[in-house]
């Protein structure tokens, strides 16, 4: 009997469709129903101490999943922070650690197969997942637990409404704990002060025109004295720097989804008139070689060019991020310029970022976990997480400046990775400033942060969105972002004429959905803040 092959395939496909009847039974390691965290504890298992340390008298083991610091050549078990915490609290962790991309996949898989861990730590859980998993009961509502067992954390949430608003949902639930960093600046504009002075500019430019003059002086004056006009007056590392560094000159800064909220009103930055002005100026500076013409080519050139001593101005967290230390002293920050529209905007982030820590419904000892993590919101806990132990990983000198203790043959980055836990993905707790240090770089960064006039500006407060809104945002944003990036690059390099195409650009952006994006954001913003 010859059976035709295609008929065979059809039969099998139908058969496999019937297989959909097969069960999706899963092994569950969660208890039935959502744990009632408060009552759980009050059932008093004698082991748990509501205050003081250790947290439990007999050791308790829980499963933790975390994102590692890729620079660390040691595992969490060997990390000084965890060892110290275990001694103090009697809480033992079983670690499952991955690097960031792998973690994302694994996390989704574990949740879908209902075998997720007790606790997520340094997990960078994104807002959409956080909201969904929380609503579905996978992540606990931490507020009742925190109110009972986390005095340090509550102190911050109660005294700083902006922290609270960044992490609590519109319904008043707290599904993940925040990473709090009062320093909100992402990067600074850094210019070569020595060169400026050489060209006769004694005061830092305060507006765009003065800046342009300075850049022209850099380009023409050969301030690095090597007989060649090889200076790059203004180095921008790709489209991201255009957004972070350049736009502030015009009083706009795009936050989430390229939006910005000013006076409670949301706008889509790439179609504003300020953006057009910025593009026109950028285009002009590009043709006049005031901006590096390789800007969109490849994003690995910042340190390369920095080390060649040809950069007049760039964007970074500190000058030493770009140029070698010997050259760093020539650079200083450029204070925020006066924008034509009178606004002060800068590349900043929210002081509180959610997703750093979460207790799941699989956890049998949520109150223990909550007390454990609360330590990280205290001064001692923060210092332990960030600096380690005095005398072991850091110490104070007689001038009361702190410095790292780096054993022979090791480097700062690996020593820190082994003895502290903060570096890497957002860590629960708060970033503590230990004061002046022997390291002039850290001191200078602190100084720059204090001196800036940008503090307090948050471009777009973080919000939580419904499923429907999330999907709409995802769809619009994927296309809109690609379009914006492409058009911005073409406008700046001159491949497309700004004046001729601007109307088209706005119309297309609207067609893709920028207005809809704005209205979704505004709607959720009003629900949260008005």
């Amino acid at each position, binding site marked *: 009997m010859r059976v035709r092959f295609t008929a065979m395939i059809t039969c099998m496909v139908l058969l496999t469709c019937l297989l959909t009847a097969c069960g*999706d039974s899963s092994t569950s390691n969660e208890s039935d129903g959502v744990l009632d965290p408060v009552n759980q504890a009050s059932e008093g298992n004698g082991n748990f101490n509501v205050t003081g340390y250790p947290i439990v008298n007999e050791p308790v083991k829980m499963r933790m999943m975390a994102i590692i610091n890729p620079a660390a050549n040691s595992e969490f078990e060997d990390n000084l922070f965890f060892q110290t915490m275990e001694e103090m609290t009697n809480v033992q962790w079983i670690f499952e650690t991955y690097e960031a991309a792998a973690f994302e996949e694994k996390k989704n898989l574990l949740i879908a197969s209902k075998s997720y861990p007790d606790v997520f730590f340094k997990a960078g859980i994104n807002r959409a997942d956080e909201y969904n998993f929380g609503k579905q009961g996978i992540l606990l509502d931490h507020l009742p637990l925190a109110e009972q067992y986390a005095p340090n954390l509550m102190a911050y949430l109660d005294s700083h409404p902006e922290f609270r608003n960044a992490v609590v949902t519109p319904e008043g639930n707290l599904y993940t704990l925040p990473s709090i960093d009062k320093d909100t600046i992402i990067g600074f504009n850094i210019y070569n002060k020595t060169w400026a002075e050489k060209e006769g500019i004694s005061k830092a430019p305060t507006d765009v025109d003065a800046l342009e003059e300075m850049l022209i002086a850099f380009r023409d004056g050969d301030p690095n004295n090597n007989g060649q006009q090889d200076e790059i007056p203004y180095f921008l590392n790709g489209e991201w720097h255009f957004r972070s560094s350049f736009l502030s000159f015009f009083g706009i800064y795009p936050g989430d989804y390229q939006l910005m909220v000013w006076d409670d009103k949301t706008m889509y930055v790439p179609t504003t008139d300020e953006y057009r002005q910025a593009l026109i100026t950028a285009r002009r500076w590009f043709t006049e070689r005031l901006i590096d013409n390789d800007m969109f080519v490849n994003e690995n050139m910042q340190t390369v060019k920095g080390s060649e001593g040809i950069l007049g101005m760039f964007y970074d967290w500190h000058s030493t991020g770009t140029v070698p230390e010997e050259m760093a002293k020539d650079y200083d920050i450029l204070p925020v310029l006066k924008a034509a529209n009178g606004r002060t905007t800068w590349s900043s982030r929210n002081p509180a970022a959610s997703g750093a820590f979460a207790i799941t419904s699989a956890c049998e000892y949520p109150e223990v976990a909550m007390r454990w993590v609360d330590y990280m919101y205290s001064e001692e806990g923060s210092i332990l997480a960030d600096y380690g132990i005095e005398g072991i990983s850091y110490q104070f000198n007689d001038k009361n400046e702190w410095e790292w203790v780096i054993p022979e043959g090791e480097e700062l980055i690996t020593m820190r990775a082994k003895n502290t836990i903060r570096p890497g993905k957002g860590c629960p707790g708060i970033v503590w400033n230990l004061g002046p240090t022997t390291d002039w770089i850290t001191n200078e960064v602190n100084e720059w942060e204090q001196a800036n006039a940008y503090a307090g500006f948050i471009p777009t407060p973080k919000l939580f969105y419904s499923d429907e809104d999330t999907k709409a945002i*995802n769809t619009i944003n*994927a296309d809109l972002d690609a379009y914006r990036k492409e058009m911005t690059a073409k406008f700046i390099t001159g491949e497309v004429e700004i004046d001729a195409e601007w109307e088209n650009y706005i119309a297309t952006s609207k067609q893709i959905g920028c207005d809809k994006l704005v209205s979704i954001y505004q709607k959720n913003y009003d629900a949260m803040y008005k």
Partner: protein
Amino acid sequence: MIKIGKSNDISHRFAKVIKNEATRNYDLYLMILPALILLGIFAYAPMYGVQIAFKDFMPANGILGSEWVGLEHFLRFFSSFNFVRIMRNTIVLSLYSLIVNFPLTIVFAIMINEVRAKWFKKTIQMVSYAPYFISTVVLVGMIQVFFHQRTGLVNILLMKLGFEPATYLTSATAFPHLYIWSGLWQGIGYSAVIYIAALSGIDPQLHEAAIIDGAGKLHRIWYVDLPGIMPTATIMLILNMGHILNVGFEKVYLMQNPLNLETSQIISTHVYEVGIQGMEYSFSAAIGLFQSIANLILLIGVNTLCKKLSETSLF
């Protein structure tokens, strides 16, 4: 007397055929059994998950508990702003890749086969095989170094020869070429292995006979070598059609920059962008299913074509 017995009944005849076959070739069945069982466990048992493409999958609800949304994800994909561009780019990259890789790999294998000096043969095989192991990150890094418009080797050579340097890395027109030819460079040695093995299976007597008949090298290649590897080549071609639309994500994503998006936006990078804020499991499953079905249709098409034109086909 007419014997109306069991042996005349059709169903019993069928049963007898089965029994004959089973006893005669029982060991063949045993040999193929492990593969059938393994696939049954790891491929068929999970297959109910295909539904995910038609549902709004929420991890906490599981697959069965998530609600049906029918073709919503597909429609969402088809109506995305850049749909035409994305499909066009994906198809261009896959077809271009096929047209370049398939014949050139065969030519390369044949050339290597003709080399008589053993040391040269081994060397070039090794050297062409090595690039396969270079990770994508490093490969793209190398492309960016070599093709940089001012410091890259390629442009420096061009300038020395008197030509103008070109902007390869930021040009949308250059992107497909960079992608495909670097892919050829990376994969040709490894892919040629199967053809070299097939060529080694060609009876040398055929070659000897051809030489005696006075056939030159090119003749011999055309009339002995090529037919000898044609079955392998046909099968490889059909199998390649089986994942033609699955242009890989990582390399394209690394090579993408704002100025080449016109040709570098493909299905997999689009799915990634949509899903980057989280929660889009069903969407990616739907797109994957769409690609699979398209691939399957193409495969059946090419298979039918091959069946008509030659003796070899997949099925």
